[in-house]
């Protein structure tokens, strides 16, 4: 056949050629029993996977934080990289936590010279606050990180993604369908995006299961290699078990007020959508809202975000129609993902990206968020403690605050001797113009740019005051704290979700 005779062939196909069998991959006629057990993707060790990935000095590696404080993967992989003598890497994790303190040595010995993350806690965070690293940490929200990956602002060379189950071809999941006793994290929302965009993707699992591991969180089409290890994490750290309902009277008081605020806000109508956090007050708010939903006979269209057992219970009762789950906070949520067909796993971009064609946060009627500090302009700090040391995570805070029609921050007015409401937060994580209401144990403050909302809350008899009065009230009891002493050196940069610098964190000054 003379393909040049095909009309317009060069216009309809730019890269065509003439079919020749010898140019194609050899057809596989592997024996039945061989196909059952073997795959060229399964490698004997992490070392081998790193070698094959072509990881070199100066590249960027990525990890997810679905194993929370039980994660073994980050330390396991970076230890191996260190042994292989690779240096000056950027570690871009969706978040880091207490258990990642061994990174301190790898920063000191030059293996890691830059970190991107949503959060940082424990010894590693303390050392960084004291100036451990030359490059400042880049903190991004979950949506901000997704957008940075999508726009190549953050390019991932090799992703190392832990998974509680994976088949020999790379179909990976946050739970295991065949074995109830394996570790389990539920949604792989943050890992999904890394798998999609990384140049090379390595799944690390402790449960190799039969192909196909479907339905899957990460598809084999995005996975280069699979490594089987003894343990990917400590199940106790990955899942703290069932989330318990708080008995703390102050949390209950805040939660009751928050639920009353939502009810009076005009957004608590049939087919509403919501996102709740995993803290005591958030969980209690969900329970108060549940009672109100039953009383008013209204349903929730979808619940988004980090998903808890509380939301799952409401889903199973028919109160919440759909669950969009980027991260499962407890075992009940993880099991629901496995068992409930309308519990949908979503990736970080779908959840909250600023640059894609539609993120779920933009569909939120209301969200309940927390705060370490909130200032008179409603700016929120969820990152640095009262001593200026990094001990938190941005998470989806700025993304949901910007996306939701009603953003409610709940916090006690005082924590010990520290007022929560202050003149100026130490670190701005979420800008005040995206926060609508602050609910404390001693009153509710509405952002002045929402006067109609303030009227509604007053009409409902809620204890509405101004944020300045809340600040005064707090300072009357515990006084005004001395400002934290910092050095000039910048140790952290907070990137807002549109990749603009919203604030910096400086090295703490210690006497």
């Amino acid at each position, binding site marked *: 056949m003379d393909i040049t005779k095909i009309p317009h062939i060069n216009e309809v196909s730019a890269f065509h050629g003439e079919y020749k069998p010898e140019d194609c991959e050899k057809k596989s006629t592997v024996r039945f029993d061989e196909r059952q057990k073997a795959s060229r993707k399964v490698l004997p060790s992490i070392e081998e996977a790193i070698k094959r990935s072509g990881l070199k000095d100066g590249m960027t590696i990525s990890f997810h934080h679905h194993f929370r404080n039980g994660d073994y993967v980050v330390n396991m992989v970076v230890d191996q990289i260190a042994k292989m003598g690779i240096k000056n890497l950027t570690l871009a994790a969706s978040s880091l936590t207490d258990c990642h303190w061994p990174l301190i040595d790898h920063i000191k010995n030059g293996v890691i010279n830059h970190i991107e993350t949503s959060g940082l806690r424990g010894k590693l965070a303390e050392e960084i606050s004291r100036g451990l690293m030359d490059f400042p940490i880049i903190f991004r929200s979950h949506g901000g990180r997704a957008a940075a990956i999508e726009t190549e602002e953050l390019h991932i060379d090799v992703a190392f993604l832990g998974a509680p189950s994976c088949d020999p071809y790379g179909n990976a999941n946050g739970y295991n369908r065949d074995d109830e006793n394996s570790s389990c994290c539920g949604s792989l929302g943050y890992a999904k995006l890394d798998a999609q965009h990384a140049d090379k993707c390595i799944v690390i699992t402790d449960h190799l299961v039969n192909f196909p591991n479907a339905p899957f969180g990460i598809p084999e089409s995005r996975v280069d290699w699979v490594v089987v290890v003894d343990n990917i994490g400590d199940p106790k750290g990955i899942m703290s078990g069932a989330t318990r309902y708080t*008995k703390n*009277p*102050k949390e*209950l*008081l805040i939660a009751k007020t928050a639920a009353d605020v939502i009810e009076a806000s005009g957004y608590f109508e049939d087919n509403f959508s919501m996102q709740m956090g995993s803290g005591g007050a958030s969980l209690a708010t969900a329970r108060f809202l549940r009672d109100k939903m039953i009383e008013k006979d209204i349903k929730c269209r979808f619940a988004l975000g980090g998903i808890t057992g509380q939301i799952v219970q409401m889903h199973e009762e028919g109160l919440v129609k759909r669950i969009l789950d980027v991260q499962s906070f407890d075992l009940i949520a993880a099991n629901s993902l496995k068992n409930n067909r309308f519990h949908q796993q979503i990736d970080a971009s779908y959840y909250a990206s600023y640059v894609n064609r539609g993120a779920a946060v933009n569909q939120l009627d209301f969200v309940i968020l927390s705060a370490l500090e909130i200032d008179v302009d409603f700016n929120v700090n969820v990152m640095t403690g009262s001593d200026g040391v990094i001990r938190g995570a941005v998470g989806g805070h700025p993304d949901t605050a910007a996306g939701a029609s009603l953003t409610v921050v709940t916090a006690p007015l*005082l924590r*010990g001797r520290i007022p929560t409401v202050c003149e100026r937060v130490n670190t701005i994580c979420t800008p005040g113009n995206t926060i609508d209401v602050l609910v404390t*144990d*001693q*009153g509710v403050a509405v952002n002045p740019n929402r006067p109609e909302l303030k009227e509604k809350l007053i009409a409902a*008899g809620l*204890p*509405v*005051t101004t944020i300045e*009065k809340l600040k005064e*009230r707090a300072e*009357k*009891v515990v006084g005004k704290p001395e400002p934290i002493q910092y050095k000039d050196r910048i140790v952290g940069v907070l990137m807002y979700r549109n990749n603009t610098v919203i604030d910096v964190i400086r090295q703490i000054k210690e006497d």
Partner: protein
Amino acid sequence: MSGRLRRSMLFVPGNNPGMIRDAHIYGSDSIMFDLEDSVAITEKDTARFLVYKALTTLNYGKKELVVRINDLSSGIGIMDLEAIVRARPDVIRLPKTETAQDVIDCEREIERIEREAGIPVGSTGMMAAIESAIGVLNAKEIAFSSKRLIGIALGAEDYVTDLKATRSPEGIELMFARGMIVNAAKAAGIMALDTVYSDVNNEEGFIAEATLIRKMGFDGKSVINPRQIRPLHAVFTPSERDLKKAMAIMDAIAEANARGSGVASLNGKMIDKPIVARAQYLLELYERSKAMPVEEV
């Protein structure tokens, strides 16, 4: 009915700064700082100092502030009075009251301290907790013993120990004491206040007990956990049905009075003075217990 509602009196251990600081946020009618049984002997000074400081520095708005002192026979009670009266609480609660003389002795000390400190004499209120078999028998004399008394209260744990009985969920062992105390209080025109319900996780049992004491005529109850306040107030809030009935009674009697009659008829039933008084009380209770606006503190 005197001016104040005392449906709930929240116990706050006097040596717990966090709880002292936040005591006003839960919406109880009164706050009772405790220097007595919730404070270990080694912490008595600390608690006295903390409560004094709290009363003189923190702003609790219009909440009624009560301090439970140690009994005078312990030797600690007098030290409590010396400090606390000067901090100007609304009410001093005297524990383990057995006789009218206990109240009179305490009142004498309070009056002396008021004079010494230049505080208007008589401005410190008192309440007496009855916690023994002899105290219950003397309830009448105790209730009439001082003009400062705003109420008498039952302290069940010591009382039941004295009886050599045990606490039961239905409270059969407290029947006599509750009856004596509520009757003595009402005879003296003061409030009757019930004991604490210790099983804080048993909301159902708590509501049953609150319902019982309300029916008996008690004005309120001590609470040991803020979580008990909301259900307690709900018990003391008149139902819509009762409210409608009370309003109908008031309308009927107003109409009868306009005709020059003191007796009216409603749905075929006679309405006379005591029924009107009860309806009026219920409406007053409702007015006062309506959602209280947030106080500027």
